[in-house]
């Protein structure tokens, strides 16, 4: 976080310096100061980063409730995983929801506190150092990167030529008059490479932008999931979603109230039975008016009124009828979910009143009989065959969710039937007629409102825009001094890099060549006897600190 070198913390105020140290109980203020100092240390930040990393390892290998709740349930029940006792321990440490746990939040908060503690002083120092004029150089001849030129121009003209070279190389320059330098020669002080620290500060500060973006997205955002059968419509209101995760600040009235009708659903299959492409053709309606028709598929969402509709899942939805005499008990497209590679299953709640009636349905999309056994030839529904069991009794159907489950213990299976598409059959000695009129499809959408996208995008841009200069830019200072000689002037060009010295060596060599060209003079090493500053000269007076 900082490139500041750590020092052993200075003794807190009021504590004796050297001498025997007695064990001392820190007061609340001292403790706070101590904590603050500790938090600002780079190694603390590193440990916090590793804490974050450790948390993500845990979350990779332990199922996370917000991601796969069913697996977590089976871990808790001991069906999967290391057993219910371990699962209980995991729960105590909220390891099933690492990213929502108190300890993860603590690490994140501490990291941001530590970041703030690092960044505030650095921003201040950075602004100060950017504002400051390039620093005067002293004893240029003694620097490791130094060359001399003997120019025929007078010092002023020679320095002007050097200044032009530095300007073209985008250095910040400052002319120092002869009486202000230590050597008594006119000087140009130049500097470049604030982009390093600036980039680093932008990179680190971008995480606050990221944090704001996440908070906005989570507070004002909404995610809902809904399954719709072909021909059916869903409306953007809270109750129409099968699953809704509104942010705390996304109210019931924040829904847009438009409707989406699934006109058609198409799916193509690979030979191995996985879907090649699936597309929902939908029409957006507002107040009953058809606005537009669009295709929604994976990687291509529908956007309307600030809500985005994504294609997620799909399945088979046979249109079923269950009637008793002239009374229609059930007529609906039943959404089936994929039970295994070959079959789709679901449960129709025929009657919720006493006695409850349920139709348990199994669908084979491409039915065939081979050696007396039912097989499925492929995923495409070209020969759908429906197998239904009729259950009667106290089936627990009054519970709202999950719709595909029912209580088998409370009732009994009274009859079974097998139907092809367009067929009807009578069961229970003609008391009930079951029909499979048509096979339609259903499509599962995720509907989301994602505010803060531009903030999040901006944070990503800032992270990269800051990161690259913080790794590649480097600060360096260059000075040129010209002393009058009988032929014209002797110019010394010297430079120092604060980072990436190897990169600077190359740059300095190129710069020295450019200056040689500009001055029309050959560069030569600075000779020891040639020092611009005579011993016992100005050096003794006005020792200006270079910092």
């Amino acid at each position: 976080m900082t490139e500041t070198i750590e020092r052993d913390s200075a003794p807190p105020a009021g504590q004796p310096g050297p001498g025997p140290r007695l064990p001392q109980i820190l007061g609340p203020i001292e403790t706070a100061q101590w904590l603050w100092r500790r938090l600002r240390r780079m190694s603390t930040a590193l440990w916090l980063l590793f804490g974050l990393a450790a948390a993500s390892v845990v979350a990779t290998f332990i199922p996370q409730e917000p991601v796969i709740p069913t697996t977590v349930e089976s871990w808790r029940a001991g069906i999967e995983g290391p057993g219910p006792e371990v699962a209980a321990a995991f729960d105590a440490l909220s390891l099933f929801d690492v990213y929502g746990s108190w300890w993860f939040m603590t690490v994140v908060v501490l990291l941001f506190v530590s970041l703030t503690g690092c960044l505030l002083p650095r921003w201040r120092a950075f602004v100060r150092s950017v504002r400051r004029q390039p620093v005067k150089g002293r004893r240029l001849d003694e620097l490791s990167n130094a060359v001399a030129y003997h120019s025929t121009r007078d010092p002023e003209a020679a320095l002007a030529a050097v200044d032009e070279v530095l300007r073209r190389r985008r250095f910040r320059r400052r002319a120092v008059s002869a009486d202000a330098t230590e050597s008594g020669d006119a000087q140009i002080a130049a500097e470049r490479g604030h982009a390093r620290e600036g980039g680093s500060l932008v990179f680190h500060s971008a995480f606050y932008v990221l944090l704001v973006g996440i908070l906005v997205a989570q507070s004002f955002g909404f995610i809902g999931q809904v399954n719709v059968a072909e021909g059916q419509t869903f409306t953007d209101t809270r109750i129409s979603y099968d699953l809704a995760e509104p942010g705390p600040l996304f109210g019931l009235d924040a829904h847009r109230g438009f409707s989406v009708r699934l006109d058609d659903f198409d799916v193509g299959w690979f030979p191995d039975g996985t879907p090649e492409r699936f597309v929902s053709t939908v029409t957006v309606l507002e107040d009953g008016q058809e606005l537009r028709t669009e295709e929604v598929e994976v990687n291509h969402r529908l956007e309307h009124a600030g809500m985005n509709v994504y294609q997620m899942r799909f399945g088979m939805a046979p249109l079923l009828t269950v009637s008793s005499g002239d009374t229609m008990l059930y007529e609906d497209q039943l959404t089936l979910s994929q039970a295994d590679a070959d079959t789709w299953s679901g449960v129709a709640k025929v009657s919720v009143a006493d006695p409850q009636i349920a139709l348990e349905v199994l669908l084979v999309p491409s039915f065939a009989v081979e050696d007396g056994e039912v097989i499925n030839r492929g995923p495409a529904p070209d020969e759908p065959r429906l197998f239904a069991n009729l259950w009667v009794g106290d089936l627990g159907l009054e519970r709202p969710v999950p719709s595909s489950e029912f209580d088998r213990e409370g009732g009994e299976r009274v009859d079974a039937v097998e139907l092809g598409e367009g067929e009807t059959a009578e069961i229970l000695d003609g008391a009930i007629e079951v029909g499979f009129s048509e096979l339609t499809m259903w499509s599962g959408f995720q509907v989301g409102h994602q505010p803060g996208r531009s903030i999040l995008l901006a944070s990503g841009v800032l992270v990269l825009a800051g990161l690259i200069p913080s790794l590649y830019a480097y600060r360096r200072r260059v000075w040129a001094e010209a002393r009058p000689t009988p032929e014209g002037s002797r110019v010394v060009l010297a430079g120092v890099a604060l980072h990436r010295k190897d990169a600077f060596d190359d740059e300095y060599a190129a710069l020295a060549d450019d200056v040689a060209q500009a001055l029309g003079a050959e560069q030569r090493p600075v000779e020891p006897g040639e020092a611009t500053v005579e011993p016992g000269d100005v050096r003794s007076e006005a020792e200006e600190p270079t910092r």
Partner: protein
Amino acid sequence: MAEFYDAQLGSLSHTLFNTALVAYLVSMVGYFFRMAYTRVAADGSSVSTTVGRRIGQAATALALAGAAVHLASIVLRGVAADRVPWANMYEYSSALALLAVLVGLVVLQRRLGLGHLMGFVLALSIVTMAIGLMLYTDPGPVVPSLQSYWIQIHVTAAMVASSIFMVAFAATALYLVKDTAERRVAARSGSVYGGSTVGAASVTSEADGQPDDRLDGDADEARYASPLAQRQVLSPVLFPLVPFAVVLAFVLVVWRAPVAALLAASVAALVGILTWYAVPHLPPAATLDTVAYRTVAFGFPIWTFAVIAGAIWAEEAWGRFWGWDPKETGSFFTWVLYAGYLHARATHGWRGRRAAWIGVLAFVALMVTYYAVNLFVVGLHSYAGV
């Protein structure tokens, strides 16, 4: 269903893949010979004998030829499947290995002048390709969620960054070996050795602006006076044995293939003993540390971009930027560790060996994110499995 891919082109592509693999293998041996004929002086400058140079040139030519054949294999694969040729693990491993070879040739050999270390980069590429072979699938189309131009942006960036990190890993691992040797030699010769700061002394200057020349003369002499002493302080038994055991256990547990496990473990043991042999021929630890740092600094922004691009794609395809899916978690973990490495390099008490170990851990995390998450953890990215 229509014909999904061109089977002939697919098998030609695979033949070229195998050809490139053989070329890399021979080139790797050549590079190791070149290394053996290279003497590294105290200041890190290296001199090869004439034989060494010739073998080195042949090895470079072979590596380049292998890379050309490899590129042809990848292009053909793309033509055969009619999509970007890095959409499953075999293809990704192949492209990753090619990129690592190219990064090694361009960055390590040309820019940094450390061509005699290319053998190690080739070894990593060969291992990657061998794993790719085990995950071979015929070219075919991809699931709907991968049918997006974002695969070119996100996956390519991740792949480029990974290949750079691969070269960085080679440098980091060699740094740790060399640093150990330097320390032990110094300890044996009884000279006062500067401890953790020495390995990084000539590099630290980058961060804190200290002068470069802090190595004290005696330790310097002790370290380079007898390069062979560096070999003697390291165990010739442990160097092949540890990689052998680790790889054997890993492959046995993961693939349950004893023959493949023995083969892979033998290769690892060979690389291990080669590393032991190579110690006197390696540049000074400080140089290796700088190489590692620079390559990580090169790869890190690209990895950052890959993660950001992934988040944007996820938002487009699944309606959320970040869902802590195992792959997302893993790439975040890798990112945090590399960020930690870069920070550690700028922190007193961490730079040198400690930072290097973080770098090693980060690379392991990268590999786990890539292989283990695809193969063993169920998540949204599972489609990319195999």
